[in-house]
């Protein structure tokens, strides 16, 4: 070989070429696959909304079921005060707005989906919050009386398996079906409790060993539902 493989200049040139080639290859892969990954994200979002309504969907059926049950034209966007603002509900990425430090809590937007289940109008309230290790999110469906909960579903990015991660299990989210978000039109907080009194109204049993995640769900519900209760109050007047 003509060149000295162990000279400084060879080592530097070798690493520069390596980094450029690898960087370009990875960028190409990431850009090339982005549209498919984004499409997967859209379908996942639809599946999450449908699951709060108790409708099981797969990646193949999600689009059709979503179009069948969700009334796209009636779905709206709210500001923090619960006033209707311009925008299309599905276009709002609440997780991104929650994450983005440049967007103050007052600037966050709140999509409200309206679904038609066997003639009854059901509202779906999407929400996002903090767990122990990362984001948690969920959708709460509210019946046409704008108070009783029709169904709820939560999920998480990386909560502790067996503990906080259990928020996406039926034994936890099914409890919310007996709850309501308001009493005589005024907001009512849903407490997540440790003492086993979850069967009482306004209370839901938390998860043993998953206290911080449970509290995260409570905070997320509390912060988000108030906005929608304000909006529902204006509808009732």
């Amino acid at each position, binding site marked *: *070989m003509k060149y000295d*493989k*162990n000279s400084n200049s*060879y*080592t530097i040139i*070798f*690493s520069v070429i*390596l*980094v450029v080639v*690898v960087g370009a*290859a*990875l960028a190409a*892969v*990431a850009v090339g*696959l982005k549209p*498919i*990954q984004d499409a*997967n994200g859209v379908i*996942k979002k639809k599946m999450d909304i449908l699951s709060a309504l108790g409708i099981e969907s797969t*990646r193949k059926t999600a689009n059709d079921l979503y179009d069948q049950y969700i009334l796209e034209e009636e779905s709206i966007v709210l500001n923090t005060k619960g006033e209707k603002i311009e925008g299309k509900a599905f276009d709002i990425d609440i997780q991104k707005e929650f994450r983005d430090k440049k967007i103050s809590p007052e600037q966050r937007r709140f999509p409200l989906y309206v679904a038609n289940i066997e003639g009854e109008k059901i509202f779906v309230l999407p929400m996002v919050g903090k767990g122990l290790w990362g984001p948690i999110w969920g959708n709460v469906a509210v019946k046409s009386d704008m108070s009783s909960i029709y169904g709820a579903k939560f999920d998480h990015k*990386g909560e502790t398996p*067996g503990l906080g991660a259990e928020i996406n299990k*039926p034994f936890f989210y*099914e409890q919310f*079906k007996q709850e309501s978000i308001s009493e005589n039109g005024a907001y009512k907080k849903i407490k997540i409790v440790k003492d086993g009194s979850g069967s009482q109204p306004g209370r839901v049993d938390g998860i043993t060993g998953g206290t911080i995640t449970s509290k995260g769900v409570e905070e997320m519900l509390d912060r988000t539902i108030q906005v929608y209760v304000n909006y529902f109050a204006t509808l009732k007047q």
Partner: protein
Amino acid sequence: MSEKEKEPLFSKKNKKLITDPLSENNPVTVQVLGICSALAITVSIEQAVVMASSVLFVVATGNVVISLMRNLIPDRIRIIVQLVAAASLVIIVNEVLKAFLPDMAEKLSVFVGLIITNCILMGRYEAFAMANKPWPSFLDGIGNSLGYGWILVVVAFFREIFGAGKLAGFQLFGNSIADKANGIELTGLYKYGYLNNNFIILAPFALFCVAIIIWIQRSVNKNLIEN
């Protein structure tokens, strides 16, 4: 590249590169490498298969790439170069999984990224690919990842059957969760009091499972027993 070689593609020596890691020199049970992922993702066969194929791609491709570059890589930064190869291949696997198997990517979550830290990879790159031609390196990569893969699948097989009562997602013993509100009842074995063993789903059981495989292997092949 293979035309230049005087020996046939699947000579005795080359065949040994594939068969050795399956038993006598198994990366998991003999070298005890890659245990972390063997514990974490062996709760279902599907996950084990996807994980094993990902490792197969990373080790085999990486071995070929490193072997092709072996005469060009400066000695002082060779570990870094191997790491770059491993990391980029793992990122590619992760992106591809996210695009085409999104649900699986979610289940495996961080463990795909953690393939980078799987000792089998760096072990093969440094010990084999740096000193051998591309074709044997490729076979060595295939052999080692198959050796790793079959252990994962066997462990996952037992964990899924006895931990979740399923095999490849299919319920074997009937419906295990009753939901009175929706009129779903226990069926099959569960009606008679059979319960899934939650301990098997937890990581420690994977260790027992691997240990049992090691035990069986060493009682069959006495050469493996250390003094």
